[in-house]
């Protein structure tokens, strides 16, 4: 079979929803999520479902790809009956730039500059997962200080990501003050990132072998200031949003997902936890030094939009707790592994030693070779399980670099979440899934 055949089979009428009359019962059960929930062998009878076929007037509208509430170029086709959403389908790919293909052309040293641009709201998680995969294949140990610096930075990143989510979510729900506050809080974290890594976003800070630079002088004060300020601000948000009747009316009972369905749809992160499943990779499969710090896994009970809001809000508090412990327990020592193969020589050595200059040059031009093999690593990013499947053929570039992007997988939960709700609620639900399109499309 050649390429043409494969495409010919699928390029007719793609991305279009069929007429309602043409929808087969099988497809409808899929839309319903019914087939997903039931034990194998049981088939849903379409007559049992609350969906009327035929004579009613349904309308298909596109939300996006340029809709302000879709958080990027996300297009959602919705079948509406009146204002009620029946079926929906997220259409993605508008931001696809082939980052996995690009990754195959970049050395391992350059790799983190590529992946950091995927989930642009938590770039450090992306760098971390790639670095963990490369280190696993290389079989190198990184020093404790590097581990703790990574943990500190990733948790700060979680704070900034969730705070920005609070901001955009507030904007979607017409609470523009929340947007201003959210961006203000995020700026505190980004200022610290700029001081440490030189950049506000896309840091390329966590690299295979450790981190790019040690924390700046006085970092304890900066970080403590963040960890002291944010919880107080969260209390203000509590007053502004959590107990506010309008906010509760717009979010409570909206976009429900059951734990069984969330697991079946491979949803991770706040969506899964809000539905009541205590699944957090930091706790379940600890990486870095998460088994040495004290924090709670926040779990919801109902699985609605309000729960997802509450989970994220309280995760910020937990992250602040971890950040404080990082300040207390930060070990002394080196911030990167002293493995000549992967670590460039100190900057000062380059001025006095020709060999050091050559060594430095080699690492940043040719990179280093990684033994053949394949590995999957996963971390808990602010959006869920962020995984990296890396295949090496022994050269200095990854043979295949696949990123398991949480937003990409979580978007699948959108049709069951939207189903049966009002179109105005759709805005709240899309926001509560927190998709980052750079990561969805990669």
């Amino acid at each position, binding site marked *: *079979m050649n*390429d*043409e055949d*494969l*495409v010919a*089979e*699928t*390029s007719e009428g*793609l*991305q279009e929803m069929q007429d309602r009359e043409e929808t087969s019962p*099988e*497809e409808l059960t*899929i839309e319903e*999520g019914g*087939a*997903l929930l039931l034990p*194998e062998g049981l088939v849903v009878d379409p007559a049992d479902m609350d969906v009327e076929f035929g004579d009613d007037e349904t309308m298909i509208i596109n939300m996006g790809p340029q809709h302000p509430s879709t958080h990027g170029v996300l297009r959602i086709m919705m079948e509406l009956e009146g204002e009620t959403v029946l079926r929906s389908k997220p259409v*993605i*790919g508008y931001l*696809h730039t*082939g980052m*996995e*293909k*690009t990754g195959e*052309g970049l050395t391992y040293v350059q790799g983190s500059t590529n992946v950091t641009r995927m989930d642009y709201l938590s770039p450090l998680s992306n760098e971390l997962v790639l670095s963990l995969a490369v280190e*696993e*294949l290389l079989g190198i140990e990184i020093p404790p200080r590097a581990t703790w610096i990574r943990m500190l930075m990733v948790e700060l990143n979680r704070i900034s990501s969730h705070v920005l989510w609070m901001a955009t979510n507030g904007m979607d729900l017409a609470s523009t003050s929340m947007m201003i506050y959210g961006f203000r809080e995020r700026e505190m974290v980004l200022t610290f990132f700029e001081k440490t890594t030189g950049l506000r976003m896309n840091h390329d800070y966590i690299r295979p072998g450790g981190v790019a630079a040690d924390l700046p002088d006085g970092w304890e004060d900066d970080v403590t200031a963040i960890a002291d300020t944010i919880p107080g601000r969260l209390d203000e948000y509590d007053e502004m949003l959590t107990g506010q009747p309008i906010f509760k009316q717009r979010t409570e009972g909206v976009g429900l997902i059951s734990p069984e369905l969330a*697991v*079946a*749809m*491979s*949803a*991770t992160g706040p969506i899964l936890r809000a539905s009541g*499943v*205590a*699944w957090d990779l930091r706790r*379940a*499969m600890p990486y870095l030094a998460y088994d040495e710090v004290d924090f709670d896994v926040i779990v919801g009970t109902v699985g609605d939009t309000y729960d997802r809001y509450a989970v994220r809000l309280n995760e910020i508090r937990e992250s602040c707790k971890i950040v404080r412990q990082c300040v207390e327990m930060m070990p002394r020592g080196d911030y990167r592994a002293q493995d000549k193969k992967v670590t460039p020589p100190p900057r000062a050595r380059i001025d006095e030693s020709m060999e050091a200059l050559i060594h430095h040059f080699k690492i940043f031009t040719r990179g280093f070779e990684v033994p*053949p*093999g*394949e*590995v*999957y*690593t*996963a971390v808990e990013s602010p959006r869920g*399980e962020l*995984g990296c*499947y890396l*295949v090496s*053929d022994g050269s200095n570039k990854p*043979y*295949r670099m*696949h990123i*398991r992007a949480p937003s*990409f*997988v979580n*978007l*699948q939960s959108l049709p069951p979440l939207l189903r049966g709700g009002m179109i105005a609620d759709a805005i709240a639900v899309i926001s509560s899934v927190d998709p980052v399109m750079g990561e969805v*499309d*990669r």
Partner: protein
Amino acid sequence: MATDVTSGAGVASAADLAGEGVVASAGAGGQEVLHVAPGRYLEVVGALRESGYEMCADLCAVDYLRHLERPLPEGTAAERFEIVVNLVSLQHRRRVRLRVQVPEDDPVLPTLFNLYPGTENMEREAFDMFGIRFEGHPDLTRILMPDDWEGHPLRKDYSVGRVPVQFKEAPGPR
């Protein structure tokens, strides 16, 4: 949620399932890897799901066109494509990775949709990027590339830069 981390009681270990067409091996970092023959793919995944792997975390494809001589355990014939499936057991906190060899001349596998509906997007991505078809998938269409795109970009014989940058007036890919 079970808090028993150390014992994997109740979860089928790789060794339990090893047999005709299934070979267990240890991947980097002590990860559990199963090499499954395409004929037993659905059956093995089903058995793993029964034994407690509730979630399919990831499904992706690899094109081994330029790395065919990769190390594989005895009894597994190397093919051009590989589908890699990552299953997670939430209650037992374990992962298992399945590697399935998919031949180049007929890249078809049964879909996992009926076992793990969350694989829908992932299988669509593997189809879009590698041209591997999943029989029984409800909506096997391109997900990231435009509908009328020709070729599968992540294949190793699909070179970077073969399509001119798509400005409005630029000549198209065809």
